[in-house]
């Protein structure tokens, strides 16, 4: 029988109504007795604790400053950390708001059903909640095999559960970070260079002479060290070329802004390649020595002239030539930025390939001011038995449909969870950690069907995110400032590691992710995989292997190591073998050819908005990380809702006023749950609208952000899947405006 799982929006039974705001009686009216709140505290009176940030994936190292009363006052970047150079971004600085968010998950919750069939969450003890998860895991293992227990994960907490699931025998995991985000570029760069661009990306923006951004919004995405380096590049007089249908922040700081017609990027990139090839501007020595397939490429781009591209992109041929020449004159110190969230139109791996090829022609891979060779510290694994070999993994859900996928595909995991899709291997239960699926996944109907299909969902999170409303068991996790976590070791110019230790004890009844994973593991008889009492033992052991110790790391936070892999850049004429089939940079991808894909990128036309509809473009705001920070009080103060950007011409047509609330309806008839305010601005084209992603939360427990703004994800029901790696192209959705509140039908979750 299919379980019917209602989305639970309210808190534990009855508790919500009673909570009367203290603020109503706060100090405002009665300030007769002078100053109550304290002012600044000088750094000497604060104790710093080493941490690295978990507000986004950049994971900048910093110090949490705790005052004498045990309150974290501020988080400041670690000077030695190459991710942040001592300067956290607004989200990192506001990370303290994550700890003191009064809406946090405070105790474990278990879903219960009343006699009338309605459902609610009951507060439970850890003992009971962990037993429940462990028993379910045992049951699934017996009935369907451990592989049927899936995991959606992101960030450090996800890694803890990944370890648990691997020990238990499942590798059925997927993270939105791949198929819903940067997957295409991974596959594209891997097939071109035999290497990933990684995170942080190995872009040498600091020393570049020319930065090319296509749909990459440095400054709106606060990928910290990149933002810092772009600023340095501006100081150094680097040429910035930004291609964007919207005047992005980066575009405003660029010498060249190419206001491209959306969905035509490949044509522009190919035209650039055409100019480089035709005018002989490519780096001949480099291309000769390191690349494979120039002749194929020359032939391939022959017709892809700037004039051809003009008709498609609306960018003047002269501008295409001029920017191509600007790149060539700066080469090899050119960063053609691979972007990060690159799942747009379903041919994204090909577009990323085009960028990779462009970079190769400029000779920038492995060159100063282009792409450096990153190196990371390999942190030894704390001893545990081998993971059992699962009978099937995420690779087997879809019988090799997406051959070049390098990680699990979230939408495939959803489909594998729905019996109706008849996947050979089916997933029966989920663990979810660090990702808020209803707002991070496109095609919400698919998600809802999958959530209703599985037998069991356990969610580990710090906040009552929308996803917790679908859970059977909610496990309240301590925030990153309250816990030990795995040592951070990301490849960079200089190999380095960073420590995260608790600055304060976990608030409420929350527990660190490692503890939760271990407790479940112990219940499953997996003690040998969790052979420690405290995670600090794991870290200390690892650090000692790395020639340092927990004690030292607590003092320095970040430790750098000398490079072992050789210099940052290729020497002139240095021999180098790339990790590809041909050992060279593949302008012509043999991998793609082998799998029946176009070995070189082609422009394909994508659907355009129908009459009265506008293309939905979504993006980032620098003060928020997707949907996870929108309730953070410090960051909510900066931005409490999103708006829909509308060109003044469109606003005139629809008679929309600045600040007016509208509902959005997409091409499939879906309407946003909440209205969103109009921002009339010249920064967006007349054929598109723009929204910042991550708003329109539907869980009332998120008291600040509930119902604020609209969710772009709700409007993304048309997903164009990238045949190469399963990426979910999301920019093929079109919206129109409803100026009056629509009838409840068609609206989601209006209770």
């Amino acid at each position, binding site marked *: 029988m299919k379980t019917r799982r209602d989305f639970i929006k309210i808190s534990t039974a009855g508790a919500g109504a009673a909570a009367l705001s203290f603020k109503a009686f706060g100090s405002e009216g009665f*300030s*007769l*007795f*002078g100053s109550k709140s304290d002012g600044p505290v000088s750094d000497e009176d604060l104790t710093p604790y080493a941490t690295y940030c978990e507000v986004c994936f950049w994971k900048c190292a910093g110090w949490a400053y705790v005052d004498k009363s045990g309150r974290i006052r501020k988080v400041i970047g670690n000077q030695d950390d190459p991710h942040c150079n001592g300067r956290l971004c607004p989200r990192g600085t506001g990370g303290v708001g994550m700890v003191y968010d009064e809406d946090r998950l405070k105790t474990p919750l278990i879903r219960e059903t009343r006699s009338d069939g309605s459902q609610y969450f009951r507060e439970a003890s850890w003992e009971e909640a962990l037993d429940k998860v462990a028993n379910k895991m045992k049951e699934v293992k017996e009935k369907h095999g451990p592989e049927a227990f899936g995991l959606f994960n992101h960030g450090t907490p996800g890694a803890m559960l990944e370890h648990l699931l691997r020990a238990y025998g499942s590798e059925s995991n997927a993270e939105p970070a791949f198929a819903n985000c940067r997957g295409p570029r991974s596959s594209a760069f891997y097939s071109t260079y035999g290497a990933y661009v990684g995170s942080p990306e190995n872009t040498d923006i600091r020393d570049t002479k020319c930065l090319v951004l296509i749909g990459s919004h440095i400054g709106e995405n606060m990928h910290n060290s990149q933002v810092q380096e772009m600023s340095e590049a501006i100081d150094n007089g680097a040429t910035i070329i930004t291609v964007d249908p919207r005047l992005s922040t980066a575009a405003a700081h660029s010498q060249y802004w190419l206001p491209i017609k959306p969905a035509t990027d490949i044509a522009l990139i190919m035209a650039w390649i055409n100019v480089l090839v035709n005018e002989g501007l490519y780096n001949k020595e480099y291309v000769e020595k390191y690349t494979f397939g120039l002749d194929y490429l020359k032939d391939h781009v022959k017709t892809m002239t700037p004039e051809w591209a003009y008709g498609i992109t609306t960018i003047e041929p002269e501008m295409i030539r001029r920017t191509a020449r600007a790149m060539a004159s700066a080469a090899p110190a050119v960063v053609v930025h691979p972007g990060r969230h690159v799942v747009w139109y379903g041919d994204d791996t090909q577009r990323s390939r085009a960028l990779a090829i462009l970079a190769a022609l400029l000779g920038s891979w492995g060159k100063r001011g282009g792409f450096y060779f990153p190196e990371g510290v390999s942190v030894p694994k704390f001893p545990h038995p081998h993971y059992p070999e699962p009978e099937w993994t995420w690779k087997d859900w879809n019988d090799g449909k997406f051959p070049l996928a390098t990680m699990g595909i979230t939408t495939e995991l959803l489909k594998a969870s729905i019996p109706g899709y008849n996947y050979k291997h089916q997933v029966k239960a989920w663990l979810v950690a660090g990702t808020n699926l209803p707002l991070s996944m496109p095609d919400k109907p698919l998600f809802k069907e999958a959530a209703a299909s599985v037998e069991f969902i356990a969610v580990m999170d710090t906040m009552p995110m929308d996803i917790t409303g679908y859970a059977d068991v909610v496990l309240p996790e301590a925030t990153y400032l309250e816990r030990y976590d795995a040592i951070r070791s990301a490849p960079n110019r200089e190999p380095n590691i960073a420590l995260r230790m608790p600055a304060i004890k976990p608030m409420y009844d929350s527990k660190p992710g490692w503890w939760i994973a271990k407790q479940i593991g112990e219940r499953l008889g997996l003690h040998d995989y969790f052979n420690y009492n405290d995670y600090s033992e794991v870290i200390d052991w690892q650090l000692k292997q790395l020639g340092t110790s927990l004690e030292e790391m607590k003092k320095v936070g970040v430790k750098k190591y000398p490079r072992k892999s050789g210099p940052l850049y290729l020497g002139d004429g240095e021999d180098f073998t790339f990790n590809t089939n041909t050992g060279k940079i593949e302008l012509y991808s043999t991998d793609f050819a082998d799998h029946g894909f176009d070995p070189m990128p082609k422009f394909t036309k994508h659907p355009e908005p129908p009459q009265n509809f506008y293309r939905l473009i979504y993006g980032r705001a620098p*003060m928020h990380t997707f949907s996870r920070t929108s309730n953070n009080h410090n960051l*909510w*103060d*900066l*931005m*409490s809702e999103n708006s829909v950007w509308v060109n*003044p011409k469109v606003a005139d047509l629809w008679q929309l006023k600045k600040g007016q609330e509208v509902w959005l309806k997409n091409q499939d008839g879906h309407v946003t749950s909440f209205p969103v305010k109009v921002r*009339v*601005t*010249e920064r967006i084209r007349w054929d598109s609208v723009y929204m910042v992603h991550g708003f329109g939360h539907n869980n009332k427990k998120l008291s600040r952000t509930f119902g604020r703004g609209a969710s772009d994800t709700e409007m993304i029901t048309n997903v164009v899947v990238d045949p190469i790696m399963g990426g979910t192209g999301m920019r093929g959705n079109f919206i129109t405006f409803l100026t009056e509140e629509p009838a409840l039908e068609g609206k989601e979750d209006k209770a």
Partner: protein
Amino acid sequence: MKEELFVSGRNIPNIDPYLNIWHWQIPLYLFLGGLAAGILFFAGFYTVRGKANQMPATVKLAPILAPIALVLGLFALFLDLKHKLFFWQLYTTIRLESPMGWGSWTLMIITPLSFIWVASYMKELIPGWNWKFNILERFEALVIKYRVALAWVMMIYAIILGVYTGILLSAFNARPLWNTSILGPLFLVSGFSTGLATIIWISKDAKERKKLSRIDLVFIFVELFLIVHLFMGFKAGSQTAIEAANLFLGGPFTVSFWVFVVILGLVFPAVLETLELWGYHVPKWLPPVMILIGGLMFRFIIVEAGQITRYLY
């Protein structure tokens, strides 16, 4: 299209989107201050001119309202203070550059003077009044003896108070609507006019009322002249000044200002007073009440509208 907006969520209570830090307390305070100034000035004026007995309402009766108005005004000011327990800090220093400091000191002086003035007439107003303490009796005698001198001091302070109610606003360079030197005389004239209206309302003496009405008409005409002058000045000024004037010339304050303040609060009572002087029967209370309501609204509108005007964004 030019677009300027806060993108860091700035939305400070009473500051954004428009400044609204002064609510009803300040305009009420300004109104009561102007009213008291008017009453005290004319009480002093006719005393100095030796007409105390021909003008009983002006010199003896109406001044009873002055200390009441001043105390109420001060109380309104106190209510406006957000750090109330520290109000005494006002009187620990003299800051000549600060209109607010200036005003508080002026009130500190004129309020006791107004009490003394009223006290000196207590025996005339209430037969059989007895001060009970000898020292008070002696003090009364002293005051009565030097009443003319007191009247002079009171007149000077009444003018200072009347001008101050306008200068408090006009000293704020940051608010283009307020930042005009006409505001001082305008508030002075308007305050005196409300004072006169109050006396006219109280007075039972037809001659006294006639005399006061004539003066009031002059004040009203001067006030109207100053208002026209004010807007001419704005219209000839910078962009921010023009924008300030436009709040009243087609903007959100157009109706409330021109209908209620100018027509019903000035022109109409002026016509009525003229008719009354020509011998037509007009309800005695009507012109003064209209002037008082007009004067009160004038201050509310100027305080509220002024806070909307700004240089940036």
